[in-house]
């Protein structure tokens, strides 16, 4: 009897390779920017911070540790974690809603976050300092989620069609609300628009820890239910008859993926396309089995969003909002893959 434990057939080599690639991209992008720092120096500064051996800093510009630790790494790590989070959320939403078109924002979570953030920006709420806007965005996202769930539940059952429909309705109402806020906002309107387009500028270690806590917990929960999620794609009736508590699993994953999304949106604004494209891209490569798809999507999502953020931060002459960049690069790229792989056939 072959009884492998772990993630059930997860190709370890592929995961290790992706982890290595992610670390490489983190180190390289930390060196990129207005002040160029070589990868060796980046590594030395990081190891100095971890080990505290002062010898490591010999011959390194005194400003480097500050640039690396206080300016770049928090931003870089936040963008990687958000990339992983949005990709996972995309995988899970597509899985539980049985819909390849779903993404982390399908259920109106982005509209809820945007509405919350817009109110905070409009009323210039600074109660909690720089955390006021993210907190309002988070509250908006979570409140929207529960509104959508309660709207779509009927006698304790929630169908995926009802969820999508409720999400669209609630998002439409909230979008109108955001438009109204922009209309009355006057001077704040540009701040609101900029927030909505997403940015990783001026992230702190607090952002890193907060997103890491939510995203890593979320990934573990999703991995725990990965096989159940595979079976849910057969439809509720079949999944129930195969011993899955379909309603309970769906609700757990729904709340988990929504929490991941809410935290990601609240620290970075709305970054589109990552949560839609990465799951599809990875499904082409590793197949639809969520036990492989979830870790692969998390790692590739982290690598790609971090790379996109590095391009806008260090390569382009002026910083383009990350949400705009992901859509501009991701959209055409997705069209190319879509055509090439003839997914109409495989998704028929």
């Amino acid at each position, binding site marked *: *009897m072959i009884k492998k434990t772990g993630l059930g057939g997860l190709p370890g080599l592929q995961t290790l390779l992706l982890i290595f690639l992610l670390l490489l991209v983190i180190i390289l992008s930390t060196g990129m920017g207005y002040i160029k720092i070589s990868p060796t120096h980046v590594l030395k500064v990081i190891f100095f911070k971890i080990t505290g051996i002062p010898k490591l800093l010999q011959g390194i510009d005194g400003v480097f540790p500050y640039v690396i630790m206080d300016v770049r790494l928090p931003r870089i790590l936040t963008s990687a974690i958000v990339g992983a989070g949005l990709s996972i959320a995309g995988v899970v939403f597509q899985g539980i809603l*049985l819909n390849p078109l779903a993404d982390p924002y399908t259920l109106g979570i982005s509209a809820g976050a945007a509405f919350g953030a817009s109110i905070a920006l409009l009323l210039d709420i600074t109660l909690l300092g720089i955390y006021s806007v993210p907190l309002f965005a988070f509250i908006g996202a979570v409140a929207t989620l529960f509104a959508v769930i309660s709207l779509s539940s009927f006698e304790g059952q929630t169908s995926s069609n009802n969820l999508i429909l409720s999400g669209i309705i609630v998002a439409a109402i909230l979008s109108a609300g955001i438009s109204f806020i922009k209309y009355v906002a006057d001077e704040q309107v540009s701040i609101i628009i900029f927030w909505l387009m997403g940015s990783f500028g001026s992230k702190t270690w607090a952002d890193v820890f907060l997103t890491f806590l939510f995203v890593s917990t979320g990934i573990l929960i999703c991995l725990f239910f990965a096989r159940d999620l595979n079976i849910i*794609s*057969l439809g509720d009736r079949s999944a*129930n008859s195969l011993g899955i508590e379909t309603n309970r699993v769906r609700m757990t994953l729904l709340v988990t993926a929504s929490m991941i999304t809410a935290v990601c949106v609240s620290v970075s604004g709305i970054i589109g396309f990552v949560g839609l494209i990465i799951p599809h891209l990875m499904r082409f490569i590793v*197949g*639809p*089995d969520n036990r492989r798809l979830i870790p692969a999507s998390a790692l590739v999502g982290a690598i790609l969003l971090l790379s996109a953020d590095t391009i806008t931060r260090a390569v382009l002459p002026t910083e383009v909002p990350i949400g705009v960049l992901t859509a501009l690069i991701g959209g055409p790229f997705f069209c190319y893959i879509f055509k090439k792989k003839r997914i109409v056939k495989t998704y028929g």
Partner: protein
Amino acid sequence: MDKKRAFEVKNLFFYYGKTQILNDLSLNIDSGKFYGIVGPNGCGKTTLLDLLIKNKRPASGAIRYLGHNIKRYQRRTLAKEIALVPQDFYINFPFTVKEIVMMGRHPHISRFASPSVEDISIRDEIMERMEIDEFKEKYVTELSGGEKQRVVIARALVQDTPVLILDEGTSNMDIQHTLRTLEMAAESVKLKKRTVVAALHNLNLAAAFCDHIVFMKDGTIVSEGEIDNTLNEQNIKDVFEVDSKVYFDRYSNSKQVVYKR
């Protein structure tokens, strides 16, 4: 308590909103027999099967499986007892045929374990018998309706349960595969003492394969019993409102129904 009784259904009522679907339905299903449930569209066959697998909860009445109320069973336990072949099957994600069939082993494989050698050999044997092993690496999304249905039946068979429920499970298949599937089901009733409950549209197939026939109309049971005593012109007239002739056919070695046009 009667050990030979698989299901005991008592005074079942079920509503969709205000529409009554099942009306005071009672039925005993003995184990080790092939039951065919027939009746016009919308008579509540699928709902009854849904209640048997605990996919829905009755408004009132009770279902006992092996003497215990079905409410008391955990889904996972029930999944080792009862397998379902659903009426329609729709999937959006490109799983391969063998991945889908392996999902039938889900209740037997613990959460983070990989399929055992036994799981794999059960899967391969069933795929061969359902003649789907030649396209086992194909994506289910690329298959025709009938091929897909064979995959779904294979998935239910690898679940390896004492009870198999077919909800019009053969409706999209060609006659060769329909006969083959029903033959496999009937054979496992004989050899493995499996209980099969099949909702069927074709009365002649019911007559050829089932031991027991259940006539349903308007959410309740009009008549039920062994094929020989129960499949007759009067019951067909009462349930389907068509004129027919029922006779014993030597070629098929079973009762057969012909209709007046």
